[in-house]
Each structure stands twice: as structure tokens, then as C-alpha cells.
């Protein structure tokens, strides 16, 4: 007893002191990392000097000299590398955004189908999920791209599944409304309606908290969102003219055309990712026990209220985090566009690397851009997740 109280203070040698040992260990780890880093850096310096490769981002201001197949902004070979890379970023954003929206819709649909009490529908959804998950996405992209190039006919014999919609080896062509000032008014009306719905929701919640009376926010909001643009359309002269794609010479003119590369990339990414999203949605719905539905019913909630106030808030908690990583996966997988020749960011950066030889800067740009996408998507989703998360104590 006496010994044990007097012993420790004096006798702990420094190599047995946990705090000092931790410090020494960390110093060693850092030293190793720094040494390896310095060694690599020195090698890079020597190699670059020997091969006469320029360093720095000066190349961004030079003329690129290559054409890009499709671009949402005006671009020509006379523009700079910086602009070429910007076109790449915009193309990546375009395919990722459209892909995410379509994936969530299709994935939710398949996930619900998987839970159907109809044996046939449920088994089909299960087969869809299992098969598409187990085939590499790159192989799927090659498959769809080959399908566009080999199976689909030339523009002259284009398939027309719906009037005005054409499918041929030049891509998918859709009719769009012909340009008219009324559409600008419709867009403005839609924005106004969005603001209106937001204000309405706030007001309705305040009133409900104060008086307990429920305002039919959903129905009124929907009416606003649909009604205001429709009103703007009618006031603007109700234009109905459509810009339908038509054959002119050897190719189609007019309408909205999606290139085979874009269509194949979008199709491959959406089908692949939606299989994963379907599993997430299924797990989320199954995580809410049936007792919750029964309890809500016994309280006298309508089925809409049950879904909105009881089931969805609990299911979303399970769904949102993995769904976020699937969105990020889709964005990252869109870089496979380089394999089928869609000019996404990686593809443009790759061309830049090949032309300038500045591999380090090129790869660093690729990594920086994708990190930015990833971080901003996950920041947004984390904010959303925090809003819907369970509030505890």
C-alpha cells in the first residue's frame, strides 16, 4: 500500500510515459512522410529539368488548337486551354446533373417495385438490381455506345418511336418548343411561384403552430407552381409551334439533339447507378416498421399525411447518406466518358496533358475539380441530412 503511493512519480522513465511516447511516435511518422515527400519532390525536380518540361499553370493561357465535339458555350480551336477545360467542366456538370435526377427517379421506382406484393414485379426488379450491379460500368458504357453505332440505322432510316422523336446513329433527337418570348415569361413566373410557395409554407407553419389549423399547402403550392407559368403562357400569346427535327441532306436539323456519346454515357451511368439507388430506397422503406403506419392510421391521419409526416421523415434518414455517396459515384464515374469520346473534363484534361506534356498540372487539375464537386455535393447533402436528422436531447 505504502509502496504503491510513493513509487510512480519518481520511477516512470520517459520511454514508458504514454504522453511522451505518443509524441515520439508521431514525430517519427511525420519524419518518414516528410522524407518520402522530399525524396519524390527532388526526383520530380530533377526529372523535369532533364526533360525540359515547363512547370506552372502558364499553359492555361495558350491557344489550345483542338476542337471539342460538343459544348454548351461557344468554343473554337483558337480559344485558350483554360476555356477548353471550362467546356469540359460544363459538360461533366451537364451529364452529372441530368444523370443524378434521372437516377433518383428510376432508382426510387425500381426500389418500390422491389417491395411490390406482386411476385412478378418484385422478382423482375430484383433481377434488374442484381444484373446491373454486377456488370462493370465501363462495359455497360461500351455496350450502349456500340448499340448506338452498330444497331441503330442511319438518319435516313431513323427509328421514330414517338412522332417527332428520332433515334439513329447520330443520336437521339427530340422536338422542343420553337423560340418565343412567352417562354421567358413562363420561366420568370415559375421562379415567382417557387418564392410564393416558400413564403406560403412559412406562413402555413406559423399559423398551424399558433392556431392548430392545417392549411392545404401541398395542393395550393402545386396549383401555384403549375398555374402561374400556365397563366404566363396564355398571356404571352399561347404559342404552340414546335421545333421538330427534320431530315435535311444527310443529317437532322432542328429540335434538341443528344449525341450518341452523351446518350450512351447518360444511359450507362443512370442504369448502373439506379440499381444501387434502388437497394438504398428499399432498405430505407423497410427500415420503417409497419407499426408506425398502423399507429398513424389509428391516430386518424390520412394516407397522405401518414406518408408525409410519419413514413418519409424516418425513411429519408436512412436513405440520404448512402444516396449522397451514390450521387458522388455517378459524378466520378462520368469521367469514364473519356473511353467513349464524350468531351468531359477528364477527356479535355487528358488531351491537354498529351499536347503540353504537363502531366503534374493536368492530373492536379483533374483531382482539384473532382474534389470540389465531391466536397460541395457532400456539403449540401450534409446540410440537408442535418435538417432531417433525428433531433436527440
Amino acid at each position, binding site marked *: 500500500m505504502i509502496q504503491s503511493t510513493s513509487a510512480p512519480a519518481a520511477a516512470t522513465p520517459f520511454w514508458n510515459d504514454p504522453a511522451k511516447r505518443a509524441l515520439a511516435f508521431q514525430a517519427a511518422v511525420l519524419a518518414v512522410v516528410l522524407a518520402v515527400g522530399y525524396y519524390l519532390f527532388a526526383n520530380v525536380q530533377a*526529372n523535369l529539368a532533364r526533360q525540359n518540361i515547363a512547370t506552372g499553370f502558364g499553359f492555361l493561357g495558350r491557344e489550345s488548337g483542338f476542337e471539342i465535339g460538343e459544348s454548351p458555350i461557344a468554343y473554337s480551336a483558337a480559344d485558350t486551354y483554360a476555356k477548353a477545360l471550362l467546356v469540359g467542366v460544363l459538360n461533366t456538370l451537364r451529364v452529372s446533373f441530368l444523370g443524378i435526377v434521372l437516377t433518383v427517379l428510376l432508382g426510387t421506382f425500381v426500389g418500390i417495385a422491389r417491395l411490390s406484393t406482386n411476385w412478378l414485379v418484385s422478382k423482375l426488379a430484383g433481377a434488374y438490381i442484381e444484373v446491373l450491379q454486377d456488370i462493370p460500368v465501363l462495359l455497360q458504357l461500351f455496350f450502349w455506345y456500340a448499340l448506338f453505332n452498330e444497331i441503330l440505322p442511319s438518319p435516313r432510316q431513323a427509328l421514330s418511336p414517338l412522332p417527332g422523336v428520332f433515334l439513329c446513329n447520330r443520336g437521339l433527337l427530340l422536338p422542343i418548343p420553337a423560340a418565343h418570348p412567352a417562354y421567358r415569361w413562363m420561366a420568370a413566373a415559375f421562379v415567382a411561384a417557387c418564392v410564393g410557395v416558400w413564403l406560403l409554407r412559412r406562413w402555413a407553419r406559423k399559423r398551424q403552430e399558433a392556431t392548430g389549423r392545417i392549411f392545404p399547402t401541398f395542393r395550393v403550392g402545386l396549383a401555384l407552381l403549375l398555374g402561374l407559368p400556365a397563366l404566363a403562357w396564355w398571356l404571352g400569346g399561347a404559342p404552340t409551334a414546335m421545333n421538330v427535327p427534320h431530315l435535311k441532306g444527310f443529317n437532322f436539323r432542328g429540335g434538341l439533339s443528344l449525341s450518341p456519346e452523351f446518350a450512351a454515357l447518360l444511359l450507362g451511368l443512370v442504369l448502373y447507378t439506379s440499381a444501387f439507388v434502388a437497394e438504398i430506397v428499399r432498405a430505407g422503406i423497410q427500415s420503417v416498421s409497419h407499426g408506425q403506419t398502423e399507429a398513424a392510421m389509428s391516430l386518424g391521419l390520412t394516407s397522405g399525411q401518414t406518408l408525409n409526416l410519419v413514413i418519409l421523415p424516418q425513411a429519408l434518414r436512412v436513405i440520404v447518406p448512402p444516396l449522397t455517396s451514390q450521387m458522388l459515384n455517378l459524378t466520378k464515374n462520368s469521367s469514364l466518358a473519356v473511353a467513349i469520346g464524350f468531351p468531359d473534363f*477528364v477527356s479535355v484534361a487528358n488531351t491537354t496533358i498529351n499536347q503540353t506534356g504537363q502531366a503534374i498540372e493536368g492530373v492536379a487539375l*483533374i483531382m482539384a475539380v473532382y474534389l470540389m464537386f465531391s466536397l460541395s455535393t457532400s456539403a449540401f447533402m450534409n446540410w440537408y441530412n442535418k435538417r432531417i436528422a433525428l433531433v436527440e436531447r
Partner: protein
Amino acid sequence: MSASSPSQPLRPPSTRLGVWGWMRVNLFNGWFNSLLTVVTVAGLGWVVPPFLRWAFWDALWNTPAEACRVGGGACWSVITKNLRFIIFGFYPHPEQWRPAVAMGLLVALLWYSKDRRRWKRSLGWIWLVALVVMGVLMRGGILGLEPVETSQWSGLPLTLLLSVFGMVAAYPLGVVLALGRRSRLPAVKSLCVAYIELIRGVPLISLLFMSSVMFPLFLPEGVTVNKILRALVAIILFTAAYIAEVVRGGLQAIPRGQYEAAESLGLNYVQTMRLIILPQALKIVIPPTVGILISAFKDTSLVVIIALYDVLNTTKSTLSNPQWMGFSTEAYLFLALLYFLGCFSMSSYSRRLERELTPGTAGRTR
């Protein structure tokens, strides 16, 4: 007679029995499901018979390309006539028995290791010896085997090599990273966090580009590392970051009491982790780990982009032969089947393992 009849079990209503009853319950319960069934069956009837006719009845199995151009069905000849190239790629023709034997050995070992009762120390040694044998078979140069350069390794052996070695090497690295991320030492922790987040934030092909264009710059003059090894390093670094996150989930799921109990027994950090924490944590995360391994297996196909000839790329180059141009559908379907079998067997094995490892549910079906 009449006394015993009340205790006789009642048969379920006849509408719930037999084929008709099963259909009533599973396909036609309510008007909505009946409609759904009819629509689905109609859709299947529209798609499936033409597909079967194309894929089987009208298909050509082993004919020259010219015959395929005339016939209306699937041209499986593109596979059968080029199978050797698709599987073995540029490996020298007379030596192709060697990768075949190596792959056979790998499959046999995987099959043998399936049973959990055989997981003993000796199995580890068997694996080590087998991997050396496989390496010798592939590379040659000793025992009178013709040496074969790694630049000629291609096709299915390359795919298997990248995936098996990628998984085997990434797993311990991932566990170390996960432990680092959970560490109380700030320097170690922030290094691990930075590594994991950086790797997980970028697409795999940017790492592959890095391995193919940037990595040579990092090496001192005169030192070269071959392309396959560089790609393998990229795959390992990538997979390890994902495994680290999965293992971290498992570590977080272990209650604090386990750590405290280990500490009170006087175990040090290494002993605590090796004997108490990791066995439990790694067992919890078997299903997500298999998920990661399956995606690593699929992701090896991305080496196509840096011009390595894995099985996807040998198929692609077969299709670029003018003679066989235009039969991509058949070739890609064959490859899809190959990958599907690999992934599906992995995932169903993981489901079985999960059932076996969860106490009290041994006999239960999913």
C-alpha cells in the same frame, strides 16, 4: 370418430392452395396488382421471345464471320473463334497452358477455401506457395520454362491478377488506415483523414492517369517500374481508402466497454486491437467489405483507359478487327456474363458467410 374430428387440423381455404392459389396471392391480389401482372406479362412477351430467338434459335455458334453477316441471329462465333485471344491476349501461343494452369489453380484454391472449417494457419501457407507457383508459371525463366515479359500478360489472367492482388494488398492497408483514423494521436489521425478523403474524392481513372503519366516522374533517373505494377499500385491505393472507411464503421460499432475491459486486463494497444477489437469489427463489416471487393473487381476493367490489355480490352481489340466488326453486342454480352458470374458468386458467398457468422440464425433462410 365424431369425438376426434374437432382436433383434426383445418385445411386452408382451397383458394390459397396449389398453383391457382399461389397466383391468387402473389399475382392477382386486388385490381392494381392484376393490372400490373397483365402489363408486365405483356411486356415480357414482347421482349423475351424475340430475344430468345435471336440469342439461341437463330444464333450461329462456330462459323466464319461471313456466315454471321448473312444469318439473322446472334453471332456467338465472335467469341468461339476468338476465345483464345480474348482469354489469354498476347501471351505467347504455345505457352498458353501456363496461365490456364495458374488460373485453374486459383479457382481451385478459392473453391477449397470456401469452407470456413479449413481456415487455419496451414491454409495461409498453401496460399503463399500457390501464389509463388502461379507467379513462376506466368513469368517463367526457371525450371526450363520460357521467360514471358509482363508486357505480354493480358486477358483474363491480367484481370484476375489485378483484382486478386489489389484486394489482398489493399485490405491490410485499409485496416491500418482505419486504425490511424480512429487514433488519438492528432498527427497520425490527420494524415489518415487527408489520405482517405483525398483518394475517395477523386475518380479512379485520375489515379490511373497518375500512375501512367506522373509516376515515372517521381522515380530517380534510370529506374522504371512496369506498367502493370504501376496500375496495380493505383488500384491498391484506391481500394484501401474505401476499405478503411468500411472498417472504421466496424470499429465505431464496438462498444466502449470492450476497450475498457481490454485495458483493465492490462493488454497494450496492439494486443487490444489484434485480440479483442479487430476480430469483432471485421466480422461486422463482412457484407460492406465484400461490396468493396466486388467493386474493386469490376473497377479493374478501367485499366482499359491506360491501354492495359485486360479481358475487356482484348475483347475490344477483337472487335476492331475488320472481320469481326459489328458484333459488339454478342461480345459484350459474353463479357457481362463473365463479370456477372464473378460478382454474383462473391455476393452470394458473402450472404452465406454472414448467415453462418451471425449466431442463432444458422439455419434461417434469407
